């Protein structure tokens, strides 16, 4: 039954092509086509009736309702001429099995960076989130000058069945593949409930869920680097439960439990939950041109033997290990403006986040390199354990203006506060900096399309005491393949 209309459509298509080719003989061909049209019209009408009758039984073929298959009437771009006007029901060609392959997208990202050569780059007054702040295992990428390629991100996503959807994001870098995210998400629970399980970026804050290719600047804000390291986000293995309230304004609550293996916690060998997070979001439109979202989040995790390499009072290296609890509060606000709510040509986005973190427990200071540092002056293998109590905070604010479809420009200002740091008796052994790291960045980027972007960024970085680093970054972000929707 299917091959008949297909053949007719092909014939029509062929004749239309001929018409386009010979513009001069239009009239002759037109009459020819008119004849064909007449003869086929009746048969098409009959077929249409049959098809309509078949489709009128809705429950008989539930699959037909959803078939999202591309249906070409002919193996070329369907002709757009006067004769093609008769609406013919699309031919439902069976999709090949490969149609079930997940949506694949690949993000290419890299940069050229010009900045000072600083051996032990970090943020003064904050524990280096990477564990060590130099050498192997140092906060990777942070000190890379010149040309470099960032993680290449491979994203695979698909509906698993009517009940679940899955997504994996693999970050590839020389010699290593990191599973950035790998989760499943519920589709069929209803009542506003969403369940996610696996490894996922936590829903805390605003920027936390966004991958680097969605960032408006070439690097994560200092506060995210101080909170979670240069990944600029907190991810964990666990479960997330969200509930969207049935209210006219957007009101969402979420809770997460997980392994808590990432900084500020660390991987502990234990049963039960290693970290918990709670968050609430509220948002709405203001008129047709403005929309906003605000949120508050809480992250509680713990560490056992969380290592860091720091300087002792004499400038020698000391190894510290922290045992205790870490509590982080976050507040975030995003506001977007677009004339008539049409962001395609012009739009403005303002976002700001604030965090406050307190850590409480014990700090053990030792001399793992036998340098005879203040914690172990005789290099005899001693160590000093003291109480440890800190309260630190920071914020950033940024605005990005898209003034033509291709060009955007943005400014970001950020400041951290090393706050109170009580090291107990180790306070006499270690450098306890008190500093307010600051950074100001300006960027301009050009997008050829939604899928390619080139960005130039300048930053005046005062995140290390006594150093003003002028950083220039030229960055590209390219996305290939199926590219899913972005969050607000």
């Amino acid at each position: 039954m299917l091959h008949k209309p297909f053949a007719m459509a092909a014939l029509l298509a062929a004749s239309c092509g001929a018409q386009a080719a010979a513009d001069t003989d239009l009239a002759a061909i037109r009459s020819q086509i008119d004849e064909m049209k007449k003869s086929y019209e009746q048969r098409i009408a009959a077929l249409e009736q049959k098809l309509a009758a078949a489709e009128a039984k809705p429950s008989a073929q539930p699959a037909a309702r959803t078939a999202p298959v591309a249906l070409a009437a002919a193996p070329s771009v369907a002709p757009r001429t006067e004769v093609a006007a008769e609406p013919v029901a699309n031919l439902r060609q069976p999709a090949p099995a490969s149609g079930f392959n997940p949506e694949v997208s690949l993000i290419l990202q890299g940069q050229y960076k010009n900045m000072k050569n600083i051996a032990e780059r970090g943020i003064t007054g904050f524990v280096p989130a990477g564990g060590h702040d130099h050498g192997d295992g140092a906060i990777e990428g942070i000190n890379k000058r010149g040309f470099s390629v960032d993680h290449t991100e491979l994203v695979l996503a698909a509906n698993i069945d009517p009940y679940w959807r899955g997504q994996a994001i693999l970050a590839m870098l020389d010699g290593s593949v990191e599973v950035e995210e790998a989760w499943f998400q519920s589709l069929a629970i209803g009542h506003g409930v969403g369940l996610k399980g696996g490894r996922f970026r936590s829903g805390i804050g605003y920027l936390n869920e966004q991958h680097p290719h969605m960032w408006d600047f070439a690097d994560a804000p200092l506060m995210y680097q101080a909170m979670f390291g240069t990944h600029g986000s907190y991810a964990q293995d666990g479960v997330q439960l969200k509930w969207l309230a049935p209210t006219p304004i957007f009101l969402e609550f979420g809770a997460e439990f997980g392994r808590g293996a990432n900084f500020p916690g660390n991987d502990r060998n234990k049963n039960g939950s290693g970290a918990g997070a709670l968050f609430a979001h509220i948002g709405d439109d203001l008129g047709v041109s403005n929309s906003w979202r605000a949120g508050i989040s809480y992250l509680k995790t713990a560490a056992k033997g969380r290592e860091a390499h720091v300087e002792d009072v004499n400038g020698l290296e000391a190894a510290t290990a922290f045992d205790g609890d870490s509590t982080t509060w976050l507040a975030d606000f995003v506001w977007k403006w677009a004339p008539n709510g049409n962001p395609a040509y012009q739009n403005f986005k303002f976002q700001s986040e604030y965090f406050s973190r307190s850590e409480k427990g014990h700090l053990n200071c030792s001399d793992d390199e036998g340098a005879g540092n203040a914690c172990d002056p005789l290099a005899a293998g001693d160590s000093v354990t003291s109480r440890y109590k800190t309260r630190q905070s920071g914020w950033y604010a940024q605005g990005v203006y898209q003034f033509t479809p291709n060009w955007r420009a943005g400014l970001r200002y950020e400041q951290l506060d090393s706050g109170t740091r009580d090291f107990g008796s180790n306070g006499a052994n270690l450098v306890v900096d008190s500093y307010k790291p600051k950074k100001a960045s300006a960027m301009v980027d050009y997008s050829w399309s939604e899928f390619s972007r080139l960005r130039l960024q300048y930053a005046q970085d005062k995140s290390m005491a006594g150093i003003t680093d002028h950083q220039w970054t030229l960055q590209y972000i390219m996305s290939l393949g199926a590219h899913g929707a972005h969050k607000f």
Partner: protein
Amino acid sequence: MRKLFLATLLGLATLPAMADLQVFATVPEWGALVQEIGGDKVKVYTATNALQDPHRIDARPSLLARARQAQLVVAVGADLEIGWLPLVLRDSGNAAIQPGRPGYFEAATLVRRLDVPATLDRAHGDVHAAGNPHVHLDPRNVLRVGEALAARMAELDVANAAAYQAGLKAFAGKWQMAMARWEKEAAPLRGVPVLVHHASFVYLINWLGMKEVGTLEPKPGIEPTSGQLTALLARQQSAPARMVLRAAYNPDGPSRWIADKAGIPAVMLPYTVGGTAEAKDLFGLFDDSLQRLLKGMR
């Protein structure tokens, strides 16, 4: 206490079901059609307006809140809303409106789509694998979608099934008469060559037998470049277009530039319901579009 909480939750969750049929329409044209069929039995929320580029919408928090409460999502499909709708549906926590469920309705899959690409390659711009999604500008498609939509509404809201069928019948009667009138009025437009900003009017042009001789966008989704505009202008010599069309949401600069240089009228069409003051509903949309096209011919 806990029981009370659960009872309140359940009460909240079932609240919308007791009122009218809650419909979330992604675009104004299908929102208007739902209103025509459903009348006072439906409550329609339209996610976008005629001044917004339907390809480029943010997944705003308000959309999530509305999708959460919808019983029926009426979308265009054919990848038009791919940049925001899948996310809104998934994060809404509303099982009833997920693709594959009766609460999810796609208009474009019901009609024969034009411009289905033979090869999928972004070198051709932001192409839609399923063909051109702007199907509503052929009134025959509106009727076809209306039939399926009324059936779906009746399926979801059995109590008002008769009202939806009656609504469809009344609409279809008026629509067929209007269509006959439009086709008669539009006779002078047959064979008229036009330029368009974006391929938003493929179905309108097809229905009226006009001829699209070029797009101001060099590739779909890529804004007009000076190179493309000059090339189109040069082509005016050999294959002159009679007017240049743009949708209400397109900026007027490029079409006005080419109109000035080529000495042809630049015609802004409402594109969808609400695009102009006259396009108050679906009838107004076509009335006004035709008036504007005919005015462009003078």
